[in-house]
């Protein structure tokens, strides 16, 4: 199984770090992984995206022209990437921010008001983790155990006190009955 995942949203929503956490957890699961950020000038205040590959075999190309899972945290990202999801793939949408449904019928979509839920939890920065939760429950991308370890490895030490709450956010995402 090769997980080819694109994560996209505004700069500042934790799109790049969500990708890094996922890749790190994949590494701990014993998989081959790559993470590639967009590094264009659009990153400042505009859209950001990162491509993650998690595979049993060496990763041929970190550049994704198509993917089998997409997480979008803003409308421009859905507009840009909806068409590159392979048939049978999934799109996970932060429906607190994205105000439209997907147009295609050959892929599945899951709408979660992640930013609203995170805000109710008291920390908007958990929205990306909630969406990753849905990804993990739908696609078994990485194990929950190693996801937690990856949080400790990737996040700076001053944020480690937040990790128990991040794991709560992950479980909320995993169990959320999305439309």
């Amino acid at each position, binding site marked *: 199984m090769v997980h080819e995942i694109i994560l996209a949203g505004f700069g500042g929503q934790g799109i790049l770090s969500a990708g890094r956490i996922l*890749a790190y957890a994949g590494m701990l699961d014993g998989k081959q992984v790559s993470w590639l950020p967009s590094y264009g000038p659009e990153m400042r205040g505009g859209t950001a995206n990162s491509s993650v590959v998690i595979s049993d075999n060496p990763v041929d190309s970190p550049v994704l022209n198509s993917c089998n899972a997409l997480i979008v945290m803003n409308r421009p990202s859905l507009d840009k990437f909806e068409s590159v999801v392979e048939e049978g793939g999934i799109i996970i949408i932060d429906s607190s921010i994205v105000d439209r449904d997907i147009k295609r019928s050959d892929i599945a979509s899951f709408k979660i008001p992640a930013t609203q839920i995170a805000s109710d939890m008291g920390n908007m920065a958990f929205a990306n983790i909630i969406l990753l939760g849905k990804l993990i429950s739908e696609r078994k991308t990485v194990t929950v155990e190693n996801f937690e370890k990856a949080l400790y490895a990737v996040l700076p030490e001053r944020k480690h006190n937040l990790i128990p709450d991040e794991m709560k956010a992950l479980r909320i995402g995993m169990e959320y009955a999305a439309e």
Partner: protein
Amino acid sequence: MGQKLLMKGNEAIAEAAVRAGCLHYFGYPITPQTEIAHYMARKLPKVGGVFLQAESEVAAINMVYGAGSTGTRVMTSSSSPGISLKQEGLSYLAGSQVPAVVVNIVRGGPGLGGIQPAQSDYFQACKGGGHGDYRQIVLAPSSVQELYELTVEAFNLADRYRIVAMILGDGILGQMMEVVEFRDEEPIEHYEKPWATTGHGGAREQNVITSIHLSPAVLEKMNQNLQAKYEIIKQKECRYELYNHEEAELFIVAYGTVARIAKSVIEMAKREGINVGLIRPVTLWPFPQEAFEKVIDRAKAFLTVEMSSGQMLEDVLLAVNGRRKVYFHGRMGGMVPVRDDIMNIVRDIYKRHVKKAE
């Protein structure tokens, strides 16, 4: 092997340099390689080294010239437009035979171009971007692991031959994260450097590091010495990878990021019963002619794929020397070749050269 880390390519280069005993880094920031400078700024002071952000790329390469003249391990890094500015310095380093490691994380050109990945500095790196009859060793990694290993190797090669060793990457390799497994101990080669300007308190004759020789006879002799050295490097230091080559009749030739994409094309082709091999030059200079000799009898055609208008293509044509047809596919300006596009070309070449013959 030792520690495993998930690391950016640029960080892996910097960590490798420190591990290889690099004590001095001079540079000027430019996307997509600035993380190298960040990393060196953090690390070098802790190991007794010097990090200095120069006022320009021209200043940085001349600082490299100065530090390298003392025989200590030194590095600079930049991306395409910045490397253009360093060309005068690189020519002086070659003329004076001062070892140094230079990293070019290539972006699209010409001019200021863009910041997305490209391979359009192949000519500049391999054919002499500066003036004079000189060469530099050019290493082309295709993974973060290889960025680490080849950077360590670049320092050894630079010292072994008193030459500039260049790491030629691209924006993807610099920016991507992959798992790197670090060795417990680096294979650092130590060389006597009796030529270095180290200070001697009158105990020996003065060492002079210079590239100026106003007598044509002396300058020609110096050039002949350089050429003899380059000949030895050609004999001894060619590196390449042959992939899926045992049964293949068609060969893709690609380096760096594009070689990875080529490998995914090879897997696609296998599923269609088309057997494609890969020649991946790891040294771009010296160019690995030997890899072509190993497969030429069986090869029916070659396909060179690059993120350029066809620069390595010229060396491939020289290596094949008219014996087989060589095709080319290239993208420019920061666009990356797409595996489906390459696969379409492979199918076409297969029909023309293999299927017809059967």
